[in-house]
């Protein structure tokens, strides 16, 4: 228990010390690499600005997550329930992944404007595939014995999907959600970089252009904290929602 809090703290302290040592050792000017203290000052002094922009980014991440998860889940269910859908949509889905999503960002901004919509779309796009493929995979890998049982019990295809295949696929779905949560901020920030009037990505680009590297680092730090907090929140939520899942991999602690 102590280790869980203590170890990351030691890691953080060592990293910050190394950062400070690098600044002292190389003597780089502040506008190239500010030392941790300056970043802390920027974080404190510009808290209002950073907070304002952070709200936009959080909104975009959450919006993208919600939309991407819903779309991904619906697609996976459609693919697994309708055979023709599987035949016709699967190749399209795989092919669509060959297009780098980032290349679409300028187009999305052109179509949806500088507001939040284009960033939400970007995050949705980046989340969509991992959610769909993880969930679809889970739906395909139902224990065959359960399906045999459902058949002898006279369950319809629909009720078997609802009562057996869907809950059985939830752990796989959950791992898709974890990946989605980790990549959603990337989508939002890339969208902001291409064209925005608010958001942490916009703030970083803006600060960078004015040599306010300390502010840029402060914004980056905020973004990292938001991403990590979001990930742990989702992870904790999923653990609570799927209590029958074994919590720990017994191989984790062995090596």
């Amino acid at each position, binding site marked *: 228990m102590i280790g869980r809090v203590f170890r990351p703290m030691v890691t953080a302290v060592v990293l910050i010390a190394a950062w400070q040592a690098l600044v002292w050792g190389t003597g780089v000017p502040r506008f190239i690499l500010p030392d941790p203290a300056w970043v802390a000052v920027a974080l404190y002094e510009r808290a209002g600005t950073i907070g304002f922009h952070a709200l936009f980014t959080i909104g975009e991440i959450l919006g993208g997550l919600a939309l991407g998860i819903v779309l991904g889940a619906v697609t996976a269910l459609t693919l697994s329930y309708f055979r023709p859908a599987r035949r016709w949509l699967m190749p399209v889905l795989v092919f669509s992944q060959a297009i780098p999503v980032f290349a679409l960002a300028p187009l999305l901004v052109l179509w949806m404007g500088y507001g939040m919509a284009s960033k939400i779309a970007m995050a949705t796009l980046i989340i969509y595939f991992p959610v769909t493929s993880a969930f679809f995979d889970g739906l395909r890998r139902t224990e065959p014995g359960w399906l045999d*049982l459902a058949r002898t019990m006279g369950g319809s295809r629909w009720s078997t999907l609802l009562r057996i295949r869907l809950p059985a696929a939830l752990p796989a779905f959950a791992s898709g959600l974890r990946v989605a949560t980790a990549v959603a901020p990337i989508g939002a920030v890339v969208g902001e970089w291409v064209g925005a009037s608010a958001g942490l990505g916009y703030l970083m680009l803006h600060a960078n252009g004015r040599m306010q590297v300390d502010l840029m680092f402060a914004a980056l730090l905020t973004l990292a904290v938001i991403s990590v907090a979001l990930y742990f929140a989702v992870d904790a939520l999923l653990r609570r929602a799927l209590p029958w899942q074994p919590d720990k991999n017994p191989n984790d602690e062995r090596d």
Partner: protein
Amino acid sequence: MHDLVRPTLSAPIPSIGVRIEGARLTYGGVRLFDGLDFALEGGRCTCLLGPSGVGKTTLLRLIAGLADPEPPTKLIAEDGGPLEGRVAYMAQQDLLLPWLGALDNVLLGPRLRGEAIGAAVVDRARGLLDAVGLGDRLRARPSELSGGMRQRVALARTLMEDRPIVLMDEPFSALDAITRLRLQEMAARLLAGKTVLLVTHDPLEALRIGHRIHVMAGQPAEIGPAISPEGTPPRPPDDPALLARQAELLRRLAS
């Protein structure tokens, strides 16, 4: 509670015999059996013994409607009705759904069929869990139960279906010796009056709970004449006559 259950357990459902005629099965280019005839006497427990890979399970799956019969296989219920919807299936694995408690696992059949789960249905499920000695573990998830307890829940779930024909595929083979003996007794008691097919590779198990015992062997496989041990099941495992029979069966299986 036991009295509450008894009327539903031993309700006089008419027993149905089942016949298979000219069964043929080709698996990977090898003819496992051809022109096989086999009958389940109505209201009796028929045990099918044989080495693994001989096709016992496939024969059971044919009757369960889980495998498509190869022509000219004929499957006949002796009252002329269909087999579908009148068969309950119990496998070697308990096939309990890990996200459901014991009671909800027993209620799986009615749920899958979209039946209304009224108080009477829940009471019956409770009564069955009570009859298998798990009346106090209604909410327990499979992960909280031992292997023997899980198989008892599976037995309750099989009985909940209330079908005249019960097909069991090595239902107790994954259990330890003592638990197995107890469960055999419980199953023989609770399944009395139903048409049962029990596939097993344990001669003692067959002798304890079978009215008629067949040995399936050879390639293509054939089913030998019925052995009908004296006395009514469940027979005590230390009966000398039974042990003599066991030696005979072992000889037949080995040849």
